């Protein structure tokens, strides 16, 4: 039996290595171009970087007001992540109950997912303007304070918690809010992690909304610095990719911190139910 297990393991590793290789090929080229200044369209394509240097990363720091943009992005993303966890957990929990009009609310949520941002630019701007939130952190964060995908992630996670636990808590006299915080959330760590990761990525990479909503350069977020690297007079591809790598890094960091929750170790014995 152990040989079969080992063969199974080898096969699994082989498959995963293959998938990883495919996923990494474009990344290798992004990194390679970020540390050199070569023309990526040169023929034939070179496999190894020629005279690598880190100056592109320095350029990125100085071409745009990087620290300011970074600060703005951090603040906006922090607001978005915090509100997402709170609002989505509440809404997800509400959706686990039965109430009149539940189907309508579900339908409403699903339909809201299907409205593309590009079609909402002008009305969203006018509404934010009426709320007096133009050019502000709250204004930048507002449209992303809750996302439907994440509500459903919480809903599914909460539904998977055995009713017995929830009923026991209710008999103990816990209020609904306490039930969420004390009973459901600790058992839905994966859902929380997903919320954090996705909310962070969506707000960190948001480009079109900050473009429209900010006038002053001091309120702009990191992706808006992109314009500086897409000059049409010079080939700034190296700096552009360095910029992309620097913008990517925090998202990866958040993912790495959160990803321990995506897998329940079989050895930890943390079984449910």
């Amino acid at each position, binding site marked *: 039996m152990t040989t079969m297990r080992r063969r199974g393991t080898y096969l699994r590793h082989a498959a995963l290595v293959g998938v990883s290789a495919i996923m990494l090929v474009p990344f290798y080229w992004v990194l390679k171009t970020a540390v050199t200044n070569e*023309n990526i*369209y*040169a*023929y034939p394509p070179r496999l190894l970087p020629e005279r690598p240097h880190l100056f592109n990363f320095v350029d990125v720091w100085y071409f745009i007001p990087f620290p300011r943009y970074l600060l703005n992005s951090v603040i906006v993303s922090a607001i978005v992540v915090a509100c997402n966890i709170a609002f989505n957990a509440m809404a997800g929990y509400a959706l686990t109950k039965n109430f009149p009009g539940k189907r309508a609310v579900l339908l409403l949520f699903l339909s809201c997912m299907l409205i593309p941002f590009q079609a909402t*630019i*002008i009305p969203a*701007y*006018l509404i934010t*303007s009426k709320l007096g939130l133009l050019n502000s952190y709250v204004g930048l964060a507002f449209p992303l304070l809750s996302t439907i995908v994440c509500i459903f992630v919480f809903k599914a996670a909460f539904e998977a918690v055995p009713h017995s636990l929830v009923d026991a808590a209710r008999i103990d006299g816990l209020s609904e809010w306490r039930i969420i915080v004390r009973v459901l959330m600790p058992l839905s760590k994966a859902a929380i992690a997903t919320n954090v990761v996705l909310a962070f990525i969506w707000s960190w990479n948001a480009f*079109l909304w900050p*473009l*429209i909503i900010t*006038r002053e350069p001091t309120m702009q977020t990191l992706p808006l610095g992109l*314009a*500086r690297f*897409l*000059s*049409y*007079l*010079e*080939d700034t591809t190296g700096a552009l990719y360095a910029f992309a790598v620097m913008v990517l890094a925090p998202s990866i960091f958040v993912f790495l911190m959160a990803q321990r929750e995506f897998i329940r170790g079989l050895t930890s014995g943390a079984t449910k139910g």
Partner: protein
Amino acid sequence: MISRRTLLKSGTGAVVSALAMPAIAQAPKKISFLTWNIIDQEPMIRGWIARFVKDRPGVEVEWLDKKGPEIPVFYQTQLAAGTPPDVINTQGALGLEYAAQGALLDLTPRLKADAAARDRFNADYLSNWAYEGNNYMLPFYITKTLLFYNKPLFQKAGLSAPPHSFDAILDAAQKMTTADASGFLTLNFDWLYWPLYAMNGIDLLSKDLAKPTFNTPKAIEVTDRLAKATEAGTINKISWTGRWVEPNGAFAAGNVGMLHAHSPAYFFVKGQGKWVTPETLGVAHAPGGFATPNSHGLGISKASKNPDLAWDFLKFVTNEGAQELGVNRKLVTGNIAVDNKNLADLEKTDPLVYSILKTQLEHTDKMVGNWRLGNDSKVKEAFWPELQNALLGRKDAKTALADAERKVARELKRG
């Protein structure tokens, strides 16, 4: 008899208003200035603003810069909200579209009143933005298409001089075509390829811009020849499928004989092409001197709350600022005096750039591809995909042009 009370009241009123007057005059007048992707010139523009406000106490200028694809989104949203930037910079025919939309201030009366301001510009370029006879923009910097050619490839094919006719272009291109090299490449956005048709006597629309006139046997023949040349590899396919980076990159790679593009392409090509030197890069007009302009203009939003100040700023930028812009960015601004001086200097310091920029000021009466349409983008959307179908061999030229004619006629009828 004026009662003491009334005297006191009116006296107080006079004092109050006297005190208030300087205060009102000191309330900051603010204008905003939107530019199109020249963020790399930040020190220069900040310098302009500093000089402008120094002589005008109480005035503030807010500077915004957006990339080309973002300007329409940004501007239209601001327009819908009623807060468009006062002075805006557009490229190509977008200025005409905004003028037709009613977003821009008609500058004609101001130009009439200030003849000096009008006469300092090249009249042909100034008329790039004349919609229904009225001027809506001043030139900020101007470009038009020309023919770059790879001298070594020309010599290798036994050609001595750049082509002087459409047939000569195709002929020369064919001679330079090998398995690795193609003969001719053109940019295709914003009607930049139109000189190829203009030099064959084909016009897109009638003089009153009401009817399509391009569906002629000659046009079909030209399209057919271009399509066949593309299929044979004589004309690089990127001409019809690429935008900016690919075509210029291909020419910079050194295996394309001719590039038909507007002057800024030089800087991109020089940056990427190690082979580019004054000896190896040839510069010429397209046959017949035909060229499509792709200029940047400056206009004032009609919703501006300080139009006079905006006009002041506009004149400042295109006069005092033009000199610095022309030198820093090595381009032609449309301001005659400034351009003459800059070119005279360039002739000594950089003969290659001088020869390129000189073409931008010659044959300005032969500019084509610049119909004063308020719905330029719609007409372009109706025409270009069909032409592209023909050029890439998806449809035969006859059907494609007929389909294009139908669609363009529909757009023109809609107005």
